């Protein structure tokens, strides 16, 4: 493993009952990379995220982050290690305000003690101020400052997608996992989002692993792409290499979802 390897999956497999969903996955994300994970619907992309984020335990294989194993870690532990995700079917805390959503991602192990909260100590005030400041800062980057107090679930779909990314950023990730962040967005929204992803990656010095089933879209911004089909990695490499790969073209034509 190279020194800059951030996340690696080795021979990772998972099955549900008798159903093999992922088979012997080998993936690697280097520090600072923007990596795409593509594949037709049902290929197992979301399941890869569920394994990385600790929601599912792999049946076999390895999973390491910054040199230490993530196996057996609970989702909140994985998150605190620095891997934070968004969800394909947006999972904001929908009856809470945007600011509260952001605050929850900053809670971690509790930024102050129970007694600090009850006595409203200096620590309490300093964190609450810091949290509002950070929320404002993040919202500004995305041009959403005016929505801070809005109920998250009442906002338009495209904005909810962006707020989910903001919430993930508030958890201070080193590796950001985005599950189809452009799903349901129109063309111009998608363009804008891709620009934003590149921007935050620079600004926060993130590594990003991005799921997308629209191949054209990932080609534009990713440095490396993994192609998943029927639970197996059928190709990996730079976008140009992927574009010409026969297996990939077949997989996509076969599923009729090419260039959606």
């Amino acid at each position, binding site marked *: 493993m190279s020194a800059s390897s951030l996340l690696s999956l080795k021979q990772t497999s998972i099955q549900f009952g008798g159903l093999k969903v992922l088979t012997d996955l080998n993936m690697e994300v280097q520090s600072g990379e923007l990596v795409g994970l593509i594949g037709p619907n049902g290929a197992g992309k979301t399941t890869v995220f569920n394994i990385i*984020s*600790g*929601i599912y335990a792999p049946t076999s294989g390895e999973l390491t982050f910054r040199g230490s194993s993530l196996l057996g870690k*609970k*989702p*909140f532990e*994985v*998150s*605190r290690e620095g891997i*934070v*995700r968004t*969800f394909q079917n947006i*999972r*904001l*805390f*929908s*009856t*809470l305000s945007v600011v*509260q959503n952001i*605050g*929850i*991602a*900053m*809670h*971690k*192990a*509790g*930024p*102050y003690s*129970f007694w600090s*909260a*009850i006595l*409203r100590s200096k620590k*309490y005030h300093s*964190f*609450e*101020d810091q*949290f*509002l*400041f950070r929320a*404002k800062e993040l919202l500004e980057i995305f041009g959403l400052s005016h929505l801070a*107090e809005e109920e998250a679930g009442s906002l338009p779909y495209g904005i909810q997608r962006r707020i989910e990314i903001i*919430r*993930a950023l508030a*958890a201070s990730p080193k590796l950001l996992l985005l599950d189809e962040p452009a799903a349901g967005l129109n063309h111009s929204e998608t363009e804008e989002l891709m620009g934003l992803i590149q921007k935050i990656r620079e600004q926060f010095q993130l590594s990003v692993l991005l799921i997308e089933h629209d191949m054209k879209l990932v080609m534009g911004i990713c440095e490396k792409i993994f192609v998943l089909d029927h639970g197996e990695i059928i190709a990996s490499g730079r976008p140009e290499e992927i574009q010409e790969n026969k297996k990939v073209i077949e997989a996509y034509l076969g599923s009729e979802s090419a260039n959606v």
Partner: protein
Amino acid sequence: MKILRSALLWLILFSLGMAAFSQGILNPYQQLILSYIAINVILATSLNLVNGFCGQFSLGHAGFMAVGAYVSAVLSLHFKVFTGSLDFLNFPFYALAGGSVAAVAGWLVGMPSLKLRGDYLAIVTLGFGEIIRVILLNMESVGGARGLYGVPGPTNFFVGTALAFFLAGGTWLVLWRLTQSSFGRAFLSVKEDEVASECMGVNTTQTKVFAFVVSSFFAGVGGSLFAHTTNYLNPASFQFMKSVDVVIMVVLGGMGSLTGSVLAAIFVTILPEALRPLQEYTGVDLRMVIYSLSLILLMILRPQGLLGSREWNSFFPFKKRGAK
């Protein structure tokens, strides 16, 4: 002035004010109702922490109340820390002790059942409430089915009501500040979406157990106040229906609204009493009928409860903290 910003000072002034008010204007019966309101406020707000804020379903509040009631009653029958003019300080001490033992019970019950998602908590807490009741029923040292007589009450009523409101106000203060903190946001995230909450770094099991222990503590405090208000304990006071009563208050006031729980506790305590003259007039006990009907009506008209999840401050156009 800094002292004016001290919550404890306001709490003491509030308790003394309520006591002076009740001593000056109310008859002993009305004063007793006031104490019952204080008890129900404690029970409803504390259960709301678990059922309303965290979205879990506990059905055993009466069990924790019973633990607090019996522990503090036994202590006060056999054990005095303060004597003479400081005698009244014993009661907060008993309440603290009752609450602490209830909190330990809450931890023992919550730890295994809150690890799992779903309705396990409802089943386990229901069982716990019944087990506590049956144990008390068979414990001769605390009177068994006959009950525990002669629990000392505060010596004068001034101290009685003041203490009741000190405890209710203190419960409110702690729960209010807790729910308005980062912990409060964590509680709500568990209710909203446990998976998303975990993925954002919240230890949801720990968060739920924490809320449950705090909730149990205050149920114990409420039980302790109950013991010293009625001066008599009987296992029958802590039946399953008592837990249901508290759930009703929480639902009625609004899940996730402490303000709503306070209003509901007042409403539910006063309504049957306010209907008493009607019963004397008609000669039939229509109280439960009217009580039930008004609950049904309210749930039809406002299924989210009186206040939904809104709190008192959302009705005033305050400037939000941090907003410039």
